[in-house]
Structure formats: structure tokens, C-alpha cells
């Protein structure tokens, strides 16, 4: 019994260490005074100087803002197209080309990023020569490229949410006199909202940390944050990257924790209401 408990404790520690030691050491070194990332300057640490340097670094701030913009546009576009595809796949029954559509929308999930990036680059170049659009490469081409691969995730999420709820709800709305468009906005959309929100967040995250595809389709002056970090690291890791990464981890972690807590609260509230209502009817 006791031995088992020791084993569990060790396994847990080793597991967490494996997952989080790199992140923790990175956070730790972001407070290091030394220019050398791996040498701890005990005399003058901890310090916030790299955080100060970070907020003075125009290049990083611009890249971060560009990443936010591209992420938001990508997520919105992916949610739009992904929801359309998810609706068609979940609600329109069997139609000619359904299997093809379903395969094609989910293919980017397994497609190597290098191939997606390369093919998009070739397409954009060819299109520019043929019709003059998109003119050059930059934020627009990155966004389009990101939409094509993040849309697949949204499609899958929306489709599974739609498959999970009773389609007689939509029929009931139609039966009560609502035209299809109204049925969608009053019934379907509110019901798949959680899927759309998580799809949006997922698309944003995927776009936010994509390097490979962005590298292919980016143009001069349109470096996203991961691209900047990547190129900085190639010239030797500077401690301000540590500071930046630390901030990112904190932001992401707090969003995830807040979201989880909120969802748990909603669930508990709903459970309690159901129990109360049932108890009352006894």
C-alpha cells in the first residue's frame, strides 16, 4: 500500500517535471541579469530589465500586434467557413460529393505544414501573375493561408456539436413558422455557440503560433511574433525572448484557467437547478 503511494508520488513528480521543467526554467532565466542565457548572475538577479527591454523593442511589439490581428482575422474567417462546412456535413443529409467534401475539409489536419505552405506560396505567386491579386505577400496572404488550415478544426468541432443535438429542435422551429434563415440564427447558432467559441479560440491559437506556413507566405515587413522569435533565436538566444515567452505563458494560462473555472461554475449551477426543479416536483 505504502509502496504504491510512493510510486504514485514519484510518477507524478517526474511526469510534471518532464512537462513543465523547461517552461519553469525559461521563466526563471527571464529574471536573470546576465546577457548569457544559461549563466545565472547571482549578484544582480533577479531583475526585470529584460521585461523593460522587451517593451522598448518596437520590432517585437509590432510583430506581437500583427500576430494578434492575423489571429483574430483568421479565427473569424475560419469560424465562418468552418461553420458553413460543418452545417452542410451535419445537416444536409447525403448529397453527391459529400464524402469528397468531408475528406477535403479535414485533409489539412493531417497535411504536412511544409506542403501546405509551399503549395499556398505557389498558388499566391501564380494568382498574382494571372489576376494581380493578392498583390505581393504579407498579412493578407498569411491570413488566407491560416484560414485554410484552421478551418478544418472548426469544421470538425461544429459538426460534432451539431451531431450531438436533436435535429427536431430545428424542425420544431420551422414548424412554428420560422424560415430557414431565422431557424439558423435563433436556434442553431445559439446552440452551437460553445463550439463556435472554442473553434474561434483554437483557430486563434493555431494561427498565433504557426511558423512554418507563415514563413512560406509572409512578405517583407510582415513578420509575425513566432517568426521574430525564431529569427532572434537563430542569432543566439537573447534573454528578452525569455521574458516575452514568460508573458505569453502567463496570459495563455490565465485565459485557460478562467475559462475552465467559468465552465465548471455553469455546469454546477445547471446541475443544482435541475436537482431543485426535480425535488420540487416530487
Amino acid at each position: 500500500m505504502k509502496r504504491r503511494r510512493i510510486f504514485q508520488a514519484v510518477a507524478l513528480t517526474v511526469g510534471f517535471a518532464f512537462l513543465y521543467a523547461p517552461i519553469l526554467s525559461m521563466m526563471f532565466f527571464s529574471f536573470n541579469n546576465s546577457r548569457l542565457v544559461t549563466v545565472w548572475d547571482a549578484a544582480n538577479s533577479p531583475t526585470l530589465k529584460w521585461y523593460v527591454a522587451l517593451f522598448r523593442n518596437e520590432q517585437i511589439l509590432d510583430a506581437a500586434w500583427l500576430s494578434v490581428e492575423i489571429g483574430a482575422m483568421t479565427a473569424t474567417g475560419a469560424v465562418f467557413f468552418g461553420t458553413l462546412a460543418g452545417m452542410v456535413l451535419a445537416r444536409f443529409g447525403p448529397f453527391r460529393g459529400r464524402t469528397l467534401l468531408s475528406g477535403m475539409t479535414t485533409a489539412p489536419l493531417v497535411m504536412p505544414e511544409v506542403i501546405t505552405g509551399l503549395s499556398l506560396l505557389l498558388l499566391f505567386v501564380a494568382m498574382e501573375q494571372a489576376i494581380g491579386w493578392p498583390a505581393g505577400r504579407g498579412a493578407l496572404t498569411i491570413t488566407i493561408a491560416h484560414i485554410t488550415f484552421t478551418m478544418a478544426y472548426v469544421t470538425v468541432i461544429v459538426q460534432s456539436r451539431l451531431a450531438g443535438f436533436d435535429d427536431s429542435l430545428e424542425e420544431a422551429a420551422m414548424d412554428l413558422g420560422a424560415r430557414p434563415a431565422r431557424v439558423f440564427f435563433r436556434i442553431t447558432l445559439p446552440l452551437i455557440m460553445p463550439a463556435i467559441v472554442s473553434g474561434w479560440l483554437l483557430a486563434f491559437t493555431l494561427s498565433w503560433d504557426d511558423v512554418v506556413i507563415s514563413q512560406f507566405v509572409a512578405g517583407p515587413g510582415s513578420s509575425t511574433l513566432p517568426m521574430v522569435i525564431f529569427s532572434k533565436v537563430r542569432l543566439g538566444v537573447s534573454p528578452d525572448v525569455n521574458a516575452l515567452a514568460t508573458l505569453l505563458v502567463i496570459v495563455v494560462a490565465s485565459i485557460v484557467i478562467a475559462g475552465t473555472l467559468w465552465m465548471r461554475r455553469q455546469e454546477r449551477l445547471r446541475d443544482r437547478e435541475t436537482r431543485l426543479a426535480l425535488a420540487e416536483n416530487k
Partner: protein
Amino acid sequence: MNEVQAANGRAPAPGLAREYVRVDRVTKKFGDFVAVDDVTLTIGQGEIFCLLGGSGCGKTTLLRMLAGFETPSAGAIFIDGQDMAGIPPYERPANMMFQSYALFPHMTVAGNVAFGLEQERLAKAEITRRVGEILDLVKMAPYTKRKPHQLSGGQRQRVALARALVKRPKLLLLDEPLGALDKKLREQTQFELLGIQERLGVTFVVVTHDQEEAMTLATRIGVMDRGKIVQVGTPTEIYEYPASRFVADFIGSVNMFEGRLVEDEPDHVRIESGELGGTVYVDHGISAAPEATVWTAIRPEKINIGRERPEGPDNAVRGVVKEIAYMGDISVFLVRIDSGRMVRVSRPNIVRQADDRISWDETVYLSWHASSPIVLTQ
């Protein structure tokens, strides 16, 4: 069941009501599977018409075609004289109550009920008034602010009914309306449904697999089997005069004996049955070829059970009591007759305690009145 049928005394005589729904040679195929097979049907205004059948008999498909969710592969549907071909669900004068109730989970009770009226673009005050009225009618007024997940099964059922009725449809389609309720609640709700229907004069088309539900609710029943309507009639007609072995067997329980027509007169027939080990005398004529194979069906409650052999050569057999099931209001006896067949007999428990109760393994005689047997040729 007899008391229940008495409740149907209020039923308007069929044929007097104005035709409201006409299903004209409708067929529905899903690929190779024929769900509804050449069905023709008329339903009068103010009727409660029950489509009764086992699962997969096509009753729900027929209902969904009335609502407009499915398109007939052939044939036409008329509601109030208007051809429904190409008319979408949101423009039909019918509302449906779904088996799952299909309440919108993100809206309150009041929101659910108001939804249909909002589609008609009525004034807010008018919507509030009508929602209040209908929720009063189904006794859900104290729960207007609740969400569906905070309601019990019976309450959800009422909200679903209110939501369908608030639009004041001429035709209400109900898919297994009481299926999700427990027995007590179901009986109570049946009578409430009848009350509401009478007050509003709506035509009801009810789909059910529960014959008791159909018997209680319906002015007429259409029995369906494998996509076809096999018999249409009042509950009494369906129960007492089934048109085929399928209907006789499906509605209530029945003892069925295969036999041969040996005497065929205009005022009586006599049937010889090996399965019964005796002859059956029926006090009315039937239309069948002489010497034809026929089936005699006798309902369990129409068989007498006693220790003395009744007089006369017909309509009596001897047997041994094998099982007795005491159900409170009635007792059901399973008797093995001399031919080896088991026969089901039910007797009401009129007195509280009888000293000379028939008991297990007793030899008894089963007999019935000459008007009781149903003679079936198909």
C-alpha cells in the same frame, strides 16, 4: 378497457364532420424501402385521429409528411382543401408536438411558447397575453421563467403542447405525445388532452404505438402495418370488429383458432376447428367461400369459465387451469384445453373474496356467447 370505450360515447359520428385532411394515394420511399405504401385517408374537422402501429410501420413518416418535413414520393396531401405539395413546414396550417418535445434548451418556458407568435410578427403585448393564456390552460403559469432542463417530464410535455397550441393551428400533429410519461401521469394527461381538444376544437392527428392511448384519445383509429393502413374505424369497431388477424392480434389480446367453414347460412355459420377441438357457432352470416379456411378470434373477457359443462354441442371446450394472474381489477387464467392449445381468459373480480375460486390444475369448461367470436378470412 370497457370503461374507457364508454368515454368515447362523446365521439361525433364519423362522416358528419367536414373533411379537413385528405391523404390521397400517398407513397413514401427511402431508397428501396417503402415506408408508406399507397395510403388513402380522410380526417374530419375536430376529429382525434390516431395512427396506430408497431415501430417501423410508417406512422411517423406519414405524420412528418403532414407536417411537411418529408415529401411524398407519390400521391398528394390536402389540408383544408389545399394541396400541400411544395408548401414548406413554416407555411402550413399545422403544428406538431414532437416525441422528444424538442423544447429549445436556451429559452425559458415563456420564450419557447412565444417563439411561434414572434414569427407571426404580432405586437409584444398580444404575444404576452396569448402566452399567458395558453400557459394558464396547461397549468404551467408558475413556471414561465424556467428553462426546459428545470422541468419534469410531465411539465415539458405541457410546455410542448402549449407551444404547439399557442399558434391556434387548425391541425395539431402529435408524435407519441405521452410516450415519455409514467402510467399514472399518462392517464391524467390523456383526459386533459381531450378536454383541451374539446375546448379548442382543433383537429388532432396522433401517432402512437400504445393501443390504450389510441383507444382513450381517438374518435377514429387507423391501424398501420408495413406502410399500409389495414383498418380505419372507431375504437369500438377496431376492437370488436377487427378486419384481419393482424388487427385482432395487435389490438388487445385475443385467442385465435384456425378452422374450416362447415355450415354457411345467412343467419349463422358453424366452424370446425382442430386447434380448438370443437365447433364454433356464430349467430350471424359471413361472406366467405364454403369450406374455406377461416380464423375464429375470441377476446379473453368474452369467455366464461366454470366447472359445469354448458349445454349444447357448440362454443364450449374443456381444459385445465395452468396459470392464474391476479391483477387486482381482473384475473387472467391460462387454460390448456384438450387440444393442447393455451387459451387466455380474463374475469373481473366483482366480489372481494369468493370461497369457491377456481384454482390451479382444476378442470374447467370454457364457453362463450354465439355473438362473441370474430370470424376472419384474412
